[in-house]
């Protein structure tokens, strides 16, 4: 049985302080702290590439596990913002940078905030189909490449970060049944504009979709796994904003302590937000891992 053994992380040291931008965006303190929730945004340097973020998360993973590149049989990079223009694929570049063997299979997948959940299912399925014992799932989606710093809708939310999740036959967390879905008609709710290369987001469309679908999705997933809400110790929700996390928490009637919000100091890191959150639960008491069921309320936009 394979599953998650450990999660390495990297958050760039650079920060944008949203408190210094409140006046420019006409945002008061209460709105920033209690609604947006992102007080600072992590930002990579201009010359740091997506593959560099992966490499740094891998260094952290090595520190946590001692995993050696030669042991890794497959690797997946999940990003919508690959190195340069996406060719060669970023996973090939990471393959070289971290010294994986030629026998290691690598490929990219392109997904946003649902990327970690999809990625877990994809890499585990790929490993099981091929009898692999060690694989790595990277998430690295530096939206600083596409965010217009003058756009109030997006520039107070997104931060840069990356994670490297080791999937192995010595798991501390195993996944249950997944539940996927897509809403292709809403795909234009968040997109990079062809004309200017900047991210454009219809906040209301994203909110309505999340508010209507995610709570139902979580309940359906619990049923599929023959669990009840009371069985879950931690709901690791995508850290889109404090407002949407609180909305889903309230909609399901969950206790505050079971729905952490951890992105205040680095922002919405897209597909890295859930593994970053899970990595913070990676304490010294490994026994606690076995008692902590987790649910990732995610849903895939096409």
């Amino acid at each position, binding site marked *: 049985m394979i599953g998650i053994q450990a999660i390495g992380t990297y958050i760039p040291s650079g920060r944008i302080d949203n408190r210094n931008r409140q006046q420019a965006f006409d945002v008061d303190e209460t709105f920033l702290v209690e609604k947006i929730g992102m007080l600072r945004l992590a930002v990579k340097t201009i010359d740091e590439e997506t593959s560099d973020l992966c490499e740094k998360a891998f260094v952290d993973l090595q520190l946590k596990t001692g995993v050696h590149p030669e042991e890794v049989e497959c690797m997946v990079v999940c990003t919508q913002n690959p190195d340069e223009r996406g060719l060669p694929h970023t996973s090939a570049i990471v393959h070289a940078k971290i010294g994986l063997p030629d026998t290691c299979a690598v490929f990219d997948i392109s997904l946003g905030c649902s990327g970690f959940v999809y990625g877990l299912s994809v890499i585990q399925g790929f490993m099981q189909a091929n009898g692999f014992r060690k694989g790595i799932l990277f998430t690295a989606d530096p939206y600083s490449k596409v965010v217009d710093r003058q756009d109030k809708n997006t520039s107070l939310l997104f931060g840069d970060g990356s994670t490297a999740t080791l999937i192995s036959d010595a798991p501390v967390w195993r996944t249950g049944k997944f539940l996927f879905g897509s809403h292709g008609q809403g795909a234009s709710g968040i997109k990079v504009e062809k004309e200017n290369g900047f991210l454009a987001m*219809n906040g209301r469309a994203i909110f309505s979709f999340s*508010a*209507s679908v995610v709570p139902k999705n979580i309940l359906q997933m619990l049923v599929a796994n023959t669990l009840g809400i009371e069985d879950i110790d931690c709901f690791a929700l995508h850290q889109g904003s404090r407002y949407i996390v609180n*909305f889903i928490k309230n909609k399901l009637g969950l206790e505050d302590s079971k729905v952490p919000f951890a992105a205040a100091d680095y922002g919405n890191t897209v597909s890295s937000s859930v593994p970053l959150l899970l990595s913070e639960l990676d304490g010294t008491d490994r026994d606690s891992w076995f008692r902590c069921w987790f649910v990732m309320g995610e849903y895939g936009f096409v």
Partner: protein
Amino acid sequence: MVVSRKDILSVFAGAGISVDLSGIRGDDSLKDAGVDSLDKMSFLFGLEEKFNIKILDEDIEALDTIDNIIAYLDHF
């Protein structure tokens, strides 16, 4: 559809909005009363769920008073 002020306020309450709107007049601006853009999104979502309607983006700016909201819902 005929919707009352009480119905509107109950949707506000159900949306988890902390602003006290109990004394608001029909023609008072919700924005001026302290309803921010995210509260309004949540409220509009509540209206859509409760009345099974779809509110278009281009209509939402005008929906800033209880009276306007009641008149708007009357068209459905």
